[in-house]
């Protein structure tokens, strides 16, 4: 489990996160939603230890305080896909994916590292691009290359404890087909009960369809957290987005429309 306890984050006198406490369990897809500026990316940065919370708050990986990990130790069990990755220089796709294995070897990559990269590239349908220049890919292709990179990083189960995958708006640049494809693939990864997946998404219908647990942030606070019926209520959506939703149920599915 990955959990945040009483996280407050303030910068330039502005409170971006206000006493946020959330739990992300292993084996289910945890999605963070919320309007622009709600603090989603800030929460991701805090749980990934990229920035330190302002107050007394603590992040726990399993039962361990994140501050007890070194940067390198954390990178061996947790990978992060951030938004808007720009490459400074031309590299081959295979070289970009191999970066995911950097926390695991010094010097040259071993056969296990090569195997992890190949499998991860196959999983996200980018194996046939392995030798291509990353700079020549389309936005969606680049995004899939980074999926393969972050998956390669935590490809093997650690000796003990969980693996953690954090995805900040992974669906940007993807067309509808690949959005569904990606969500299905991530869901299939969750067969491993020791994998914790946390993602930020904007599309409420995708959240309704795939999420096992939803956290709705609004103005730096947790407005609601739980399953889709609890979180995606008319009241919550009205409060967070200022829109009037029409919620439609069909068999097991739930759809949202806006007037």
């Amino acid at each position, binding site marked *: 489990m990955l959990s945040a306890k009483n996280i407050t984050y303030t910068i330039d006198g502005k409170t971006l996160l206000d006493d946020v406490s959330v739990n992300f369990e292993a084996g289910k897809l945890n999605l963070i939603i919320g309007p622009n500026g709600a603090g989603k990316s800030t929460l991701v940065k805090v749980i*990934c230890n990229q920035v330190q919370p302002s107050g007394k708050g603590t992040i726990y990986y399993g039962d361990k305080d994140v501050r007890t990990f070194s940067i*390198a130790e954390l990178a061996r069990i947790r990978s*992060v896909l951030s938004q808007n990755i*720009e490459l*400074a220089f*031309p*590299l081959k796709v295979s*070289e970009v994916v191999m*970066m995911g294995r950097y926390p695991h070897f010094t010097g040259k990559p071993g056969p296990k590292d090569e195997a992890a990269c190949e499998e991860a590239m196959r999983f996200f349908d980018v194996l046939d691009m392995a030798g291509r220049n990353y700079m020549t890919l389309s936005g969606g292709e680049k995004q899939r290359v980074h999926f393969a990179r972050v998956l390669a*990083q935590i490809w093997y189960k650690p000796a003990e404890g969980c693996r953690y995958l954090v995805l900040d708006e992974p669906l940007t640049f993807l067309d509808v087909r690949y959005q569904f494809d990606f969500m299905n693939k991530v869901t299939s990864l969750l067969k491993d009960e020791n994998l914790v997946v946390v993602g930020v998404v904007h599309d409420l219908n995708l959240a309704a369809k795939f999420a096992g647990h939803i956290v709705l942030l609004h103005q730096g606070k947790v407005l609601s957290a739980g399953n889709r019926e609890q979180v995606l209520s008319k009241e919550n959506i009205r409060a967070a987005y200022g829109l009037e939703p029409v919620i439609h149920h069909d068999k097991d599915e739930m759809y949202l429309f806006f007037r």
Partner: protein
Amino acid sequence: MDNKQYRGTSFILLILLVIVLLLSMKYGAVNISLDEIFSGFSKWLHNNENMTLNERIFLQIRLPRALLCIFVGATLAVGGVLMQALFRNPIVEPGLVGTSSGAAFGAALYFVMGATFKVNAGEWTLPLAACAGGILSTAFVFMLSQSKQTGKSSIVALLLTGIAINALFMSGVGFLSYIARDPQARSITFWNLGTLSGASWHSVIIIGTSTVICIAIALRYARHLNALMIGEEEAQYLGINIKKLKAVILLVNVVMVATATAFVGVISFVGLIVPHLLRMINGSDNRFLIRNGALLGAILLSAADLVARMALRPAELPIGIVTSIIGVPVFIVLLRSKNYFF
């Protein structure tokens, strides 16, 4: 990553380096035959003092100069690789953080003030003045680029401060050459365009040591620099301590460049062009770029020095003129080739 391909490139570069090295020892104001090179070398090994003039020229002038070319070329090229990787920016040169313009200012000050205050022009005075200038200006850049709020210096702040401080010190050099008397102004100009004519065994040993140590350290951090290509935050997610990486790479670069610049002056363009040439051949893996950058930098600078000595024989051109005249057109042609994407 294709290690075989990389090794192939290294092998070709190594052969080229040997060829250029032999040519640059053989030709110059006096031509020395290969026989004389070998006999001079064996006499030196056997401590035989009984040498011909050409053998002495080879051992006291040509050989140290050839070695100096190798070390300085390697320093500039690797400095370029490191700074481009660290700043994630292809237009960056090793002198970016103020090192070489500060060194140039120190040297210019020495030329002008030295004459006024009658400072004895020993072998060490000029390098010391230049090195002091280089370190001072670099420290200046770092102090000014630190954010007041966080106490950290962002890469962009460093880049912009570097550009500003470079401009300041170069205008200082301009002012000094303006008020200098003719011979001093000439010395300043010559030094600002770089020259290896002052090569001695002392300078070879000092620059050689700093080059070898610094490149060895840089190689250890090559993979970290690779990770930096996808961004600072992302590299941190890959387990890399960015603060430490920045500190180590900047220190390595400043030590290397300040030492080399102190002895040979400002040599432009090698540090910019070499990383790009290599990226066009085998991509951007920094392990490859550092190793082969050292070789290619050595080759280019040795070749440029050969041209500088031969073009107006027996007079000598400043080497910076040669590196730019040959380097720029080659660079432009390659940049316009289809295989190089940005």
